[in-house]
Protein backbone atom coordinates (compact mmCIF):
# COMPACT_ATOMS: atom_id res chain seq x y z
CA UNK A 1 0.00 0.00 0.00
CA UNK A 2 1.22 3.48 -0.78
CA UNK A 3 -0.50 4.91 2.23
CA UNK A 4 1.67 5.08 5.32
CA UNK A 5 0.58 2.63 8.02
CA UNK A 6 -0.87 4.44 11.00
CA UNK A 7 0.16 3.49 14.49
CA UNK A 8 -1.70 4.55 17.61
CA UNK A 9 0.75 4.84 20.51
CA UNK A 10 -0.80 4.59 23.95
CA UNK A 11 1.36 5.23 27.02
CA UNK A 12 1.20 7.51 30.04
CA UNK A 13 4.88 8.41 29.87
CA UNK A 14 5.21 11.52 27.73
CA UNK A 15 8.82 10.80 26.85
CA UNK A 16 8.00 7.31 25.65
CA UNK A 17 5.41 8.86 23.34
CA UNK A 18 7.61 11.72 22.11
CA UNK A 19 10.60 9.52 21.50
CA UNK A 20 8.85 6.69 19.71
CA UNK A 21 6.62 9.04 17.74
CA UNK A 22 9.71 10.80 16.35
CA UNK A 23 11.45 7.56 15.51
CA UNK A 24 8.37 5.91 14.00
CA UNK A 25 7.61 8.94 11.88
CA UNK A 26 11.17 8.93 10.67
CA UNK A 27 10.71 5.26 9.87
CA UNK A 28 7.81 5.83 7.55
CA UNK A 29 4.84 5.49 9.86
CA UNK A 30 2.06 7.88 10.68
CA UNK A 31 1.58 8.25 14.39
CA UNK A 32 -1.36 9.18 16.60
CA UNK A 33 -1.06 9.28 20.38
CA UNK A 34 -3.07 8.76 23.55
CA UNK A 35 -1.93 9.13 27.15
CA UNK A 36 -4.57 7.24 29.06
CA UNK A 37 -6.75 4.20 28.62
CA UNK A 38 -9.96 6.19 28.71
CA UNK A 39 -8.89 8.21 25.68
CA UNK A 40 -8.31 5.17 23.50
CA UNK A 41 -11.75 4.23 22.18
CA UNK A 42 -12.41 7.75 20.93
CA UNK A 43 -8.96 7.94 19.38
CA UNK A 44 -9.45 4.64 17.62
CA UNK A 45 -12.75 5.82 16.17
CA UNK A 46 -11.28 9.10 15.07
CA UNK A 47 -7.84 8.03 13.87
CA UNK A 48 -8.64 4.55 12.44
CA UNK A 49 -5.16 3.18 13.16
CA UNK A 50 -3.74 0.08 11.47
CA UNK A 51 -2.04 -1.06 14.64
CA UNK A 52 -2.13 -0.12 18.31
CA UNK A 53 0.83 -0.08 20.64
CA UNK A 54 -0.63 -0.30 24.13
CA UNK A 55 1.12 0.06 27.47
CA UNK A 56 -0.54 -2.23 29.98
CA UNK A 57 0.44 -0.67 33.27
CA UNK A 58 -1.02 2.74 33.37
CA UNK A 59 -3.09 4.13 36.18
CA UNK A 60 -4.76 2.47 39.11
CA UNK A 61 -8.24 2.79 37.74
CA UNK A 62 -7.30 2.78 34.14
CA UNK A 63 -5.13 -0.08 33.04
CA UNK A 64 -4.41 -0.81 29.42
CA UNK A 65 -5.62 -4.31 30.02
CA UNK A 66 -9.23 -3.25 30.27
CA UNK A 67 -8.88 -1.24 27.08
CA UNK A 68 -7.44 -4.19 25.19
CA UNK A 69 -10.31 -6.40 26.24
CA UNK A 70 -12.85 -3.79 25.16
CA UNK A 71 -11.20 -3.46 21.76
CA UNK A 72 -11.16 -7.20 21.20
CA UNK A 73 -14.76 -7.53 22.21
CA UNK A 74 -15.83 -4.92 19.72
CA UNK A 75 -16.62 -6.44 16.31
CA UNK A 76 -15.58 -3.27 14.51
CA UNK A 77 -12.14 -3.00 16.09
CA UNK A 78 -11.20 -6.53 17.07
CA UNK A 79 -9.09 -7.05 13.99
CA UNK A 80 -6.71 -4.21 14.65
CA UNK A 81 -3.47 -5.85 15.78
CA UNK A 82 -2.42 -4.84 19.28
CA UNK A 83 1.14 -4.86 20.56
CA UNK A 84 0.94 -4.91 24.33
CA UNK A 85 3.84 -3.54 26.28
CA UNK A 86 4.40 -4.50 29.84
CA UNK A 87 7.16 -3.82 32.30
CA UNK A 88 7.12 -7.19 33.93
CA UNK A 89 5.25 -9.99 32.28
CA UNK A 90 5.39 -12.19 35.29
CA UNK A 91 4.08 -9.53 37.62
CA UNK A 92 1.03 -8.82 35.61
CA UNK A 93 0.35 -12.52 35.57
CA UNK A 94 -0.68 -12.53 32.02
CA UNK A 95 -0.69 -15.59 29.92
CA UNK A 96 -2.01 -14.73 26.58
CA UNK A 97 -2.97 -18.20 25.61
CA UNK A 98 -4.94 -19.30 28.58
CA UNK A 99 -6.48 -16.45 30.45
CA UNK A 100 -7.92 -14.53 27.57
CA UNK A 101 -9.14 -17.43 25.50
CA UNK A 102 -10.99 -16.34 22.46
CA UNK A 103 -9.96 -12.75 22.78
CA UNK A 104 -6.33 -12.73 21.84
CA UNK A 105 -5.49 -13.52 18.32
CA UNK A 106 -2.45 -14.46 16.34
CA UNK A 107 -2.32 -10.89 15.18
CA UNK A 108 -1.73 -9.70 18.73
CA UNK A 109 1.55 -9.77 20.52
CA UNK A 110 3.33 -8.52 23.58
CA UNK A 111 6.78 -7.28 24.45
CA UNK A 112 8.61 -6.41 27.61
CA UNK A 113 9.61 -2.90 28.49
CA UNK A 114 12.05 -1.32 28.26
CA UNK A 115 12.55 -1.69 24.56
CA UNK A 116 14.44 0.54 22.20
CA UNK A 117 12.64 2.31 19.36
CA UNK A 118 14.40 -0.08 16.94
CA UNK A 119 13.03 -3.06 18.77
CA UNK A 120 9.62 -1.47 18.74
CA UNK A 121 9.74 -1.02 14.97
CA UNK A 122 10.80 -4.64 14.54
CA UNK A 123 7.92 -5.86 16.64
CA UNK A 124 5.49 -3.66 14.72
CA UNK A 125 6.70 -4.98 11.37
CA UNK A 126 6.47 -8.51 12.65
CA UNK A 127 2.87 -7.98 13.63
CA UNK A 128 2.01 -6.46 10.33
CA UNK A 129 3.55 -9.42 8.55
CA UNK A 130 1.54 -11.84 10.63
CA UNK A 131 -1.71 -10.07 10.05
CA UNK A 132 -1.21 -10.32 6.33
CA UNK A 133 -0.80 -14.08 6.41
CA UNK A 134 -2.46 -15.39 9.52
CA UNK A 135 -5.48 -15.28 11.71
Amino acid at each position, binding site marked *: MAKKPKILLVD*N*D*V*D*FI*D*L*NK*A*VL*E*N*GGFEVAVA*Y*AGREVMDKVKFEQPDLIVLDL*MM*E*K*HDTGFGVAKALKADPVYRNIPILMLT*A*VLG*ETGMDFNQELDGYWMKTDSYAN*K*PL*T*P*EELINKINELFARSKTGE
Partner: protein
Amino acid sequence: MDDKVTILVVDDEKGIREGCRRILTGEGFAVDVAANGKEGLEMVKAKIYDLMLVDLMMPGMGGLDMMEQVSQIDSEIIMIVITGFATIETAVDAMKRGAYDYIPKPFTPDQLLAFVNRGLEKRRLSMQAKRLMEERDQKLLEVANERSKIHTIVNSIADGILVINREKQLVLFNPAAIKMLALSRKLETGKDINDLILNEDLIHIIEEGFSSESSQYTILSEEIELPSPINKTLMVNVSKVRDETGQDFGIVSTLRDITSLKEINQIKSQFVAMVTHELRAPLSAIEGYLSAYLTQAAGNDPQMYSQMMERAKQRAHSLLELVNDLLQYSRLEVKSVARKKEPLNISEIILSTVELLKVQGTAKDLKFEMDVPEHLPLIEADRTEMEQLFTNLVSNAIKYNVKKGKVMVKARPDCNFLHITVADTGIGIDDESLPCIFDEFYRVCGPETRYVTGTGLGLSIVKKIVESHFGHIKIDSKVGKGTAFTVMLPIQQGKESK
Protein backbone atom coordinates in the same frame (compact mmCIF):
# COMPACT_ATOMS: atom_id res chain seq x y z
CA MET B 1 25.30 -45.49 111.27
CA ASP B 2 28.96 -45.55 112.16
CA ASP B 3 31.13 -47.98 110.35
CA LYS B 4 31.93 -49.81 113.53
CA VAL B 5 28.99 -51.56 115.13
CA THR B 6 28.47 -50.47 118.73
CA ILE B 7 26.81 -52.76 121.22
CA LEU B 8 25.70 -52.07 124.79
CA VAL B 9 25.53 -54.91 127.33
CA VAL B 10 23.41 -54.26 130.40
CA ASP B 11 23.64 -56.94 133.11
CA ASP B 12 24.15 -56.84 136.86
CA GLU B 13 26.31 -60.00 136.69
CA LYS B 14 29.88 -59.02 135.99
CA GLY B 15 30.62 -62.40 134.50
CA ILE B 16 27.98 -61.99 131.84
CA ARG B 17 29.07 -58.45 131.10
CA GLU B 18 32.72 -59.32 130.65
CA GLY B 19 31.96 -62.58 128.87
CA CYS B 20 29.80 -60.85 126.30
CA ARG B 21 32.33 -58.08 125.92
CA ARG B 22 35.08 -60.59 125.20
CA ILE B 23 33.03 -62.54 122.67
CA LEU B 24 31.72 -59.48 120.87
CA THR B 25 34.94 -57.51 120.66
CA GLY B 26 36.49 -60.63 119.23
CA GLU B 27 34.09 -60.20 116.29
CA GLY B 28 35.20 -56.66 115.77
CA PHE B 29 32.30 -54.95 117.47
CA ALA B 30 32.73 -52.01 119.84
CA VAL B 31 31.26 -52.92 123.21
CA ASP B 32 30.15 -50.86 126.17
CA VAL B 33 28.82 -52.31 129.43
CA ALA B 34 26.45 -51.12 132.14
CA ALA B 35 25.79 -52.73 135.48
CA ASN B 36 22.22 -51.64 135.90
CA GLY B 37 19.25 -50.12 134.14
CA LYS B 38 19.89 -46.58 135.24
CA GLU B 39 23.49 -46.63 134.10
CA GLY B 40 22.45 -48.21 130.81
CA LEU B 41 19.87 -45.48 130.24
CA GLU B 42 22.45 -42.76 130.77
CA MET B 43 24.71 -44.44 128.23
CA VAL B 44 21.95 -44.69 125.61
CA LYS B 45 21.25 -41.00 126.08
CA ALA B 46 24.87 -40.18 125.47
CA LYS B 47 25.65 -42.39 122.48
CA ILE B 48 23.94 -44.16 119.61
CA TYR B 49 24.08 -47.95 119.88
CA ASP B 50 23.20 -50.36 117.12
CA LEU B 51 22.23 -53.16 119.48
CA MET B 52 21.62 -53.66 123.16
CA LEU B 53 21.72 -56.82 125.27
CA VAL B 54 19.56 -56.42 128.36
CA ASP B 55 19.22 -58.68 131.37
CA LEU B 56 15.61 -58.87 132.46
CA MET B 57 16.24 -59.44 136.15
CA MET B 58 18.17 -56.55 137.52
CA PRO B 59 17.92 -54.73 140.83
CA GLY B 60 16.53 -51.25 140.73
CA MET B 61 15.18 -50.64 137.24
CA GLY B 62 14.24 -53.94 135.63
CA GLY B 63 15.10 -54.83 132.06
CA LEU B 64 11.54 -54.33 130.86
CA ASP B 65 11.23 -50.85 132.31
CA MET B 66 14.60 -49.94 130.96
CA MET B 67 13.63 -51.12 127.45
CA GLU B 68 10.51 -49.03 127.51
CA GLN B 69 12.46 -45.92 128.36
CA VAL B 70 15.14 -46.71 125.80
CA SER B 71 12.63 -47.03 122.98
CA GLN B 72 11.46 -43.56 123.77
CA ILE B 73 14.96 -42.26 123.41
CA ASP B 74 16.00 -44.34 120.39
CA SER B 75 13.35 -46.23 118.46
CA GLU B 76 15.83 -47.71 116.04
CA ILE B 77 18.00 -49.60 118.51
CA ILE B 78 17.80 -53.40 118.36
CA MET B 79 17.11 -54.78 121.83
CA ILE B 80 17.83 -58.38 122.71
CA VAL B 81 16.73 -59.63 126.11
CA ILE B 82 18.86 -62.03 128.21
CA THR B 83 16.81 -63.98 130.63
CA GLY B 84 17.14 -66.89 132.98
CA PHE B 85 13.40 -67.22 133.31
CA ALA B 86 12.54 -68.10 129.77
CA THR B 87 8.80 -68.20 130.14
CA ILE B 88 6.45 -67.40 127.31
CA GLU B 89 4.94 -64.54 129.30
CA THR B 90 8.20 -62.74 129.87
CA ALA B 91 9.17 -63.26 126.24
CA VAL B 92 5.91 -61.85 124.98
CA ASP B 93 6.16 -58.96 127.39
CA ALA B 94 9.64 -58.18 126.26
CA MET B 95 8.56 -58.22 122.60
CA LYS B 96 5.75 -55.88 123.46
CA ARG B 97 8.23 -53.44 124.93
CA GLY B 98 10.18 -53.46 121.75
CA ALA B 99 12.56 -56.34 122.11
CA TYR B 100 13.65 -57.97 118.90
CA ASP B 101 14.56 -61.30 120.36
CA TYR B 102 15.55 -63.01 123.61
CA ILE B 103 18.45 -65.24 124.57
CA PRO B 104 17.93 -67.75 127.35
CA LYS B 105 20.75 -68.28 129.84
CA PRO B 106 23.04 -70.13 129.70
CA PHE B 107 24.31 -69.57 126.18
CA THR B 108 27.40 -70.41 124.23
CA PRO B 109 29.46 -67.76 122.44
CA ASP B 110 28.25 -69.10 119.11
CA GLN B 111 24.67 -68.80 120.18
CA LEU B 112 25.26 -65.24 121.38
CA LEU B 113 26.87 -64.32 118.12
CA ALA B 114 24.07 -65.88 116.10
CA PHE B 115 21.48 -63.77 117.93
CA VAL B 116 23.55 -60.63 117.72
CA ASN B 117 24.25 -61.02 114.00
CA ARG B 118 20.61 -61.62 113.26
CA GLY B 119 19.71 -58.51 115.15
CA LEU B 120 22.35 -56.47 113.38
CA GLU B 121 21.11 -57.70 110.02
CA LYS B 122 17.69 -56.39 110.87
CA ARG B 123 19.21 -53.13 111.93
CA ARG B 124 21.08 -52.87 108.68
CA LEU B 125 17.99 -53.56 106.64
CA SER B 126 15.78 -51.10 108.47
CA MET B 127 18.44 -48.37 108.25
CA GLN B 128 18.70 -49.05 104.55
CA ALA B 129 14.92 -48.97 104.10
CA LYS B 130 14.81 -45.68 105.96
CA ARG B 131 17.52 -44.21 103.81
CA LEU B 132 15.83 -45.38 100.61
CA MET B 133 12.53 -43.88 101.66
CA GLU B 134 14.19 -40.57 102.36
CA GLU B 135 15.88 -40.66 98.99
CA ARG B 136 12.67 -41.53 97.29
CA ASP B 137 10.81 -38.67 98.92
CA GLN B 138 13.61 -36.34 97.94
CA LYS B 139 13.48 -37.54 94.33
CA LEU B 140 9.72 -37.26 94.15
CA LEU B 141 9.98 -33.70 95.33
CA GLU B 142 12.61 -32.95 92.71
CA VAL B 143 10.50 -34.53 89.99
CA ALA B 144 7.49 -32.56 91.07
CA ASN B 145 9.55 -29.38 91.02
CA GLU B 146 11.00 -30.17 87.61
CA ARG B 147 7.64 -31.02 86.20
CA SER B 148 6.12 -27.86 87.51
CA LYS B 149 9.10 -25.89 86.21
CA ILE B 150 8.72 -27.48 82.81
CA HIS B 151 5.03 -26.79 82.78
CA THR B 152 5.61 -23.20 83.69
CA ILE B 153 8.23 -22.84 80.99
CA VAL B 154 6.20 -24.60 78.33
CA ASN B 155 3.10 -22.64 79.21
CA SER B 156 4.85 -19.34 78.97
CA ILE B 157 6.44 -19.98 75.58
CA ALA B 158 4.90 -17.79 72.92
CA ASP B 159 5.07 -20.48 70.27
CA GLY B 160 2.46 -23.20 70.34
CA ILE B 161 3.72 -26.62 71.40
CA LEU B 162 2.14 -29.99 70.71
CA VAL B 163 3.76 -33.25 71.75
CA ILE B 164 2.21 -36.37 70.26
CA ASN B 165 3.14 -39.96 71.06
CA ARG B 166 3.38 -42.93 68.74
CA GLU B 167 -0.24 -43.79 69.34
CA LYS B 168 -1.14 -40.39 67.89
CA GLN B 169 -2.32 -39.16 71.27
CA LEU B 170 -1.73 -35.67 72.47
CA VAL B 171 0.69 -35.77 75.37
CA LEU B 172 1.58 -32.14 75.98
CA PHE B 173 0.27 -28.81 74.80
CA ASN B 174 0.38 -25.20 75.87
CA PRO B 175 -2.00 -22.22 75.87
CA ALA B 176 -0.26 -20.70 72.84
CA ALA B 177 -1.17 -23.78 70.78
CA ILE B 178 -4.82 -23.42 71.72
CA LYS B 179 -4.78 -19.76 70.81
CA MET B 180 -3.09 -20.24 67.46
CA LEU B 181 -5.31 -23.03 66.31
CA ALA B 182 -8.37 -21.19 67.59
CA LEU B 183 -9.81 -24.48 68.67
CA SER B 184 -13.35 -24.64 69.81
CA ARG B 185 -12.82 -28.14 71.07
CA LYS B 186 -10.87 -28.38 74.30
CA LEU B 187 -7.40 -29.79 73.95
CA GLU B 188 -6.97 -32.76 76.21
CA THR B 189 -4.03 -35.03 76.76
CA GLY B 190 -4.68 -38.66 76.00
CA LYS B 191 -7.02 -37.92 73.14
CA ASP B 192 -6.34 -38.85 69.55
CA ILE B 193 -5.14 -35.82 67.62
CA ASN B 194 -7.38 -36.56 64.70
CA ASP B 195 -10.28 -35.84 67.00
CA LEU B 196 -8.78 -32.64 68.33
CA ILE B 197 -7.22 -31.03 65.26
CA LEU B 198 -9.28 -30.55 62.17
CA ASN B 199 -6.81 -28.74 59.96
CA GLU B 200 -5.74 -31.19 57.27
CA ASP B 201 -2.44 -29.53 56.47
CA LEU B 202 -1.40 -29.67 60.09
CA ILE B 203 -2.38 -33.33 60.40
CA HIS B 204 -0.48 -34.05 57.22
CA ILE B 205 2.76 -32.56 58.44
CA ILE B 206 2.39 -34.35 61.77
CA GLU B 207 1.96 -37.65 59.93
CA GLU B 208 5.05 -36.88 57.91
CA GLY B 209 6.94 -36.37 61.12
CA PHE B 210 6.15 -39.92 62.15
CA SER B 211 7.44 -41.43 58.94
CA SER B 212 10.63 -43.43 59.10
CA GLU B 213 12.50 -41.18 56.70
CA SER B 214 13.00 -38.38 59.13
CA SER B 215 15.81 -38.84 61.61
CA GLN B 216 15.88 -37.24 65.01
CA TYR B 217 17.70 -34.25 63.63
CA THR B 218 15.36 -33.56 60.78
CA ILE B 219 13.02 -30.68 61.29
CA LEU B 220 10.09 -30.56 58.92
CA SER B 221 9.06 -27.01 58.29
CA GLU B 222 5.94 -25.84 56.58
CA GLU B 223 3.72 -22.80 56.38
CA ILE B 224 0.06 -23.52 56.76
CA GLU B 225 -2.82 -21.20 56.09
CA LEU B 226 -5.72 -21.17 58.46
CA PRO B 227 -8.70 -20.06 56.40
CA SER B 228 -11.34 -17.60 57.52
CA PRO B 229 -12.68 -16.80 59.92
CA ILE B 230 -9.34 -17.36 61.62
CA ASN B 231 -7.15 -15.98 58.79
CA LYS B 232 -3.70 -16.74 60.11
CA THR B 233 -0.52 -18.08 58.63
CA LEU B 234 1.41 -20.43 60.88
CA MET B 235 4.94 -21.72 60.58
CA VAL B 236 4.88 -25.34 61.72
CA ASN B 237 8.06 -27.18 62.71
CA VAL B 238 7.90 -30.90 63.42
CA SER B 239 10.67 -33.12 64.73
CA LYS B 240 10.98 -36.56 66.27
CA VAL B 241 11.31 -37.12 69.97
CA ARG B 242 13.36 -40.03 71.21
CA ASP B 243 13.44 -41.35 74.74
CA GLU B 244 16.62 -42.28 76.65
CA THR B 245 16.85 -45.69 75.01
CA GLY B 246 16.82 -44.17 71.57
CA GLN B 247 13.30 -45.36 70.82
CA ASP B 248 10.90 -43.14 68.97
CA PHE B 249 8.65 -41.62 71.52
CA GLY B 250 6.64 -39.44 69.20
CA ILE B 251 6.89 -36.02 67.69
CA VAL B 252 7.00 -32.47 68.90
CA SER B 253 5.46 -29.72 66.84
CA THR B 254 5.92 -26.01 67.34
CA LEU B 255 3.57 -23.44 65.88
CA ARG B 256 4.50 -19.85 65.21
CA ASP B 257 2.14 -17.14 64.08
CA ILE B 258 3.78 -15.47 61.11
CA THR B 259 0.71 -13.67 59.82
CA SER B 260 2.07 -10.19 60.42
CA LEU B 261 5.48 -11.18 59.08
CA LYS B 262 3.86 -12.19 55.82
CA GLU B 263 1.88 -8.98 55.69
CA ILE B 264 4.97 -6.91 56.18
CA ASN B 265 6.76 -8.89 53.50
CA GLN B 266 3.92 -8.31 51.14
CA ILE B 267 3.90 -4.58 51.78
CA LYS B 268 7.61 -4.51 51.27
CA SER B 269 7.34 -6.42 47.99
CA GLN B 270 4.69 -4.07 46.77
CA PHE B 271 6.82 -1.09 47.65
CA VAL B 272 9.85 -2.56 45.92
CA ALA B 273 7.72 -3.22 42.83
CA MET B 274 6.54 0.37 42.85
CA VAL B 275 10.04 1.74 43.25
CA THR B 276 11.47 -0.37 40.45
CA HIS B 277 8.62 0.78 38.27
CA GLU B 278 9.39 4.40 39.11
CA LEU B 279 13.05 3.88 38.34
CA ARG B 280 12.52 2.08 35.10
CA ALA B 281 10.45 4.75 33.33
CA PRO B 282 12.91 7.65 33.55
CA LEU B 283 15.88 5.40 32.81
CA SER B 284 14.11 4.02 29.75
CA ALA B 285 13.41 7.51 28.52
CA ILE B 286 16.99 8.63 29.05
CA GLU B 287 18.41 5.58 27.33
CA GLY B 288 15.89 5.90 24.51
CA TYR B 289 16.72 9.55 23.85
CA LEU B 290 20.44 8.93 23.95
CA SER B 291 20.10 5.92 21.70
CA ALA B 292 17.95 7.81 19.20
CA TYR B 293 20.50 10.59 19.15
CA LEU B 294 23.40 8.22 18.62
CA THR B 295 21.70 6.35 15.79
CA GLN B 296 19.99 9.43 14.43
CA ALA B 297 16.89 7.29 14.38
CA ALA B 298 14.56 10.26 14.62
CA GLY B 299 15.76 12.06 11.54
CA ASN B 300 18.14 14.93 10.86
CA ASP B 301 16.74 17.85 12.79
CA PRO B 302 19.34 19.00 15.36
CA GLN B 303 16.78 21.04 17.22
CA MET B 304 14.72 17.91 17.84
CA TYR B 305 17.75 16.17 19.31
CA SER B 306 18.50 19.20 21.40
CA GLN B 307 15.02 19.03 22.87
CA MET B 308 15.44 15.33 23.47
CA MET B 309 18.68 15.90 25.38
CA GLU B 310 16.99 18.58 27.43
CA ARG B 311 14.23 16.16 28.29
CA ALA B 312 16.70 13.42 29.11
CA LYS B 313 18.41 15.83 31.48
CA GLN B 314 15.12 16.63 33.19
CA ARG B 315 14.34 12.96 33.66
CA ALA B 316 17.82 12.38 35.06
CA HIS B 317 17.31 15.20 37.52
CA SER B 318 13.99 13.75 38.62
CA LEU B 319 15.72 10.44 39.27
CA LEU B 320 18.10 12.18 41.63
CA GLU B 321 15.15 13.81 43.34
CA LEU B 322 13.58 10.38 43.63
CA VAL B 323 16.64 9.03 45.40
CA ASN B 324 16.52 11.92 47.86
CA ASP B 325 12.84 11.54 48.45
CA LEU B 326 13.17 7.81 49.00
CA LEU B 327 15.83 8.42 51.61
CA GLN B 328 13.69 11.04 53.30
CA TYR B 329 10.67 8.79 53.14
CA SER B 330 12.39 5.80 54.65
CA ARG B 331 13.89 7.96 57.38
CA LEU B 332 10.41 9.02 58.35
CA GLU B 333 9.39 5.41 58.67
CA VAL B 334 11.85 4.90 61.49
CA LYS B 335 10.11 6.70 64.29
CA SER B 336 12.88 6.96 66.78
CA VAL B 337 15.49 8.26 64.40
CA ALA B 338 17.10 11.60 65.04
CA ARG B 339 13.91 13.56 65.34
CA LYS B 340 14.93 16.59 67.35
CA LYS B 341 11.84 18.36 68.38
CA GLU B 342 12.39 21.79 69.80
CA PRO B 343 10.21 24.83 70.37
CA LEU B 344 10.12 26.61 67.03
CA ASN B 345 8.78 29.84 65.75
CA ILE B 346 7.78 28.43 62.44
CA SER B 347 7.22 31.77 60.77
CA GLU B 348 10.90 32.13 60.03
CA ILE B 349 11.07 28.69 58.43
CA ILE B 350 8.09 29.41 56.20
CA LEU B 351 9.43 32.74 55.04
CA SER B 352 12.92 31.46 54.29
CA THR B 353 11.58 28.41 52.43
CA VAL B 354 9.47 30.59 50.17
CA GLU B 355 12.42 32.89 49.52
CA LEU B 356 14.50 29.94 48.41
CA LEU B 357 11.85 28.57 46.07
CA LYS B 358 10.69 31.87 44.57
CA VAL B 359 13.18 31.55 41.75
CA GLN B 360 11.40 28.41 40.49
CA GLY B 361 8.33 30.53 39.89
CA THR B 362 9.97 33.16 37.70
CA ALA B 363 9.44 31.18 34.50
CA LYS B 364 5.71 31.37 35.05
CA ASP B 365 5.91 34.94 36.42
CA LEU B 366 4.23 33.94 39.67
CA LYS B 367 3.25 36.33 42.42
CA PHE B 368 3.80 35.36 46.05
CA GLU B 369 1.43 36.67 48.71
CA MET B 370 2.63 36.15 52.28
CA ASP B 371 0.37 36.56 55.32
CA VAL B 372 2.67 35.16 57.99
CA PRO B 373 3.10 37.18 61.18
CA GLU B 374 6.66 37.51 62.48
CA HIS B 375 5.81 36.01 65.85
CA LEU B 376 3.72 32.90 65.97
CA PRO B 377 3.03 30.72 69.02
CA LEU B 378 5.77 28.18 69.38
CA ILE B 379 5.27 24.62 68.22
CA GLU B 380 7.26 21.57 69.24
CA ALA B 381 8.80 20.46 65.97
CA ASP B 382 11.84 19.18 64.12
CA ARG B 383 13.35 22.01 62.15
CA THR B 384 14.59 19.93 59.23
CA GLU B 385 11.25 18.21 58.83
CA MET B 386 9.40 21.49 58.90
CA GLU B 387 11.66 22.82 56.18
CA GLN B 388 10.96 19.72 54.13
CA LEU B 389 7.24 20.02 54.73
CA PHE B 390 6.97 23.56 53.44
CA THR B 391 9.41 23.01 50.63
CA ASN B 392 7.21 20.24 49.28
CA LEU B 393 3.99 22.23 49.59
CA VAL B 394 5.35 25.41 48.07
CA SER B 395 7.15 23.50 45.36
CA ASN B 396 3.88 21.84 44.34
CA ALA B 397 2.12 25.19 44.40
CA ILE B 398 4.66 26.47 41.92
CA LYS B 399 4.88 23.34 39.78
CA TYR B 400 1.17 23.00 39.19
CA ASN B 401 0.46 26.67 38.84
CA VAL B 402 -0.54 28.60 35.71
CA LYS B 403 1.27 31.48 34.01
CA LYS B 404 1.02 34.70 35.99
CA GLY B 405 -0.63 32.81 38.79
CA LYS B 406 -0.38 33.32 42.56
CA VAL B 407 0.97 31.43 45.51
CA MET B 408 -0.59 32.44 48.84
CA VAL B 409 0.85 31.44 52.19
CA LYS B 410 -1.03 32.21 55.37
CA ALA B 411 -0.39 31.31 58.99
CA ARG B 412 -2.47 31.98 62.06
CA PRO B 413 -3.22 30.41 65.42
CA ASP B 414 -6.69 28.97 66.06
CA CYS B 415 -7.62 27.38 69.39
CA ASN B 416 -4.75 25.03 70.20
CA PHE B 417 -3.44 24.70 66.68
CA LEU B 418 -1.41 26.67 64.24
CA HIS B 419 -3.08 26.77 60.83
CA ILE B 420 -0.78 27.19 57.86
CA THR B 421 -2.29 27.35 54.39
CA VAL B 422 -0.36 27.07 51.14
CA ALA B 423 -2.67 27.92 48.25
CA ASP B 424 -2.21 28.26 44.51
CA THR B 425 -4.13 29.33 41.47
CA GLY B 426 -3.09 26.24 39.64
CA ILE B 427 -4.79 23.47 37.70
CA GLY B 428 -6.46 21.96 40.73
CA ILE B 429 -7.14 18.34 41.60
CA ASP B 430 -10.20 16.50 40.35
CA ASP B 431 -12.48 14.62 42.75
CA GLU B 432 -11.37 11.25 41.46
CA SER B 433 -7.72 11.92 42.23
CA LEU B 434 -8.26 13.62 45.57
CA PRO B 435 -8.44 10.49 47.74
CA CYS B 436 -5.18 9.18 46.25
CA ILE B 437 -3.27 12.39 46.49
CA PHE B 438 -1.14 11.34 49.47
CA ASP B 439 -0.45 7.86 48.10
CA GLU B 440 3.14 6.89 47.44
CA PHE B 441 4.26 7.66 43.88
CA TYR B 442 0.84 9.02 42.96
CA ARG B 443 0.89 11.90 40.51
CA VAL B 444 -2.06 13.58 38.89
CA CYS B 445 -2.08 12.96 35.16
CA GLY B 446 -3.55 15.28 32.64
CA PRO B 447 -2.65 17.29 29.59
CA GLU B 448 -1.39 20.18 31.72
CA THR B 449 0.88 18.01 33.80
CA ARG B 450 2.29 15.88 31.07
CA TYR B 451 5.76 17.37 31.20
CA VAL B 452 5.86 18.03 34.91
CA THR B 453 8.39 15.78 36.61
CA GLY B 454 7.78 14.78 40.17
CA THR B 455 8.65 11.87 42.37
CA GLY B 456 5.13 11.26 43.61
CA LEU B 457 6.51 11.13 47.15
CA GLY B 458 6.30 14.82 48.01
CA LEU B 459 2.85 14.69 49.57
CA SER B 460 3.42 11.26 51.12
CA ILE B 461 6.34 12.81 52.95
CA VAL B 462 4.26 15.85 53.93
CA LYS B 463 1.59 13.61 55.40
CA LYS B 464 4.09 11.56 57.37
CA ILE B 465 5.70 14.66 58.82
CA VAL B 466 2.35 16.14 59.81
CA GLU B 467 1.31 12.90 61.48
CA SER B 468 4.55 12.52 63.37
CA HIS B 469 3.97 15.98 64.80
CA PHE B 470 0.45 15.03 65.85
CA GLY B 471 -1.13 17.42 63.37
CA HIS B 472 -3.67 17.21 60.56
CA ILE B 473 -3.72 18.22 56.95
CA LYS B 474 -6.65 19.07 54.74
CA ILE B 475 -7.12 19.91 51.09
CA ASP B 476 -9.43 22.20 49.26
CA SER B 477 -9.30 22.05 45.50
CA LYS B 478 -11.21 22.97 42.40
CA VAL B 479 -10.20 21.98 38.89
CA GLY B 480 -9.19 25.01 36.89
CA LYS B 481 -9.22 27.27 39.94
CA GLY B 482 -6.54 26.10 42.31
CA THR B 483 -5.65 24.12 45.40
CA ALA B 484 -5.16 24.99 49.05
CA PHE B 485 -3.38 22.72 51.53
CA THR B 486 -3.94 23.56 55.20
CA VAL B 487 -1.62 22.06 57.79
CA MET B 488 -2.68 22.18 61.45
CA LEU B 489 0.05 21.74 64.03
CA PRO B 490 -0.47 21.69 67.80
CA ILE B 491 0.74 24.72 69.66
CA GLN B 492 3.13 24.08 72.52
CA GLN B 493 1.12 24.54 75.68
CA GLY B 494 2.08 27.09 78.27
CA LYS B 495 4.59 28.96 76.16
CA GLU B 496 4.25 32.03 74.02
CA SER B 497 6.98 33.32 71.73
CA LYS B 498 8.57 36.52 72.80
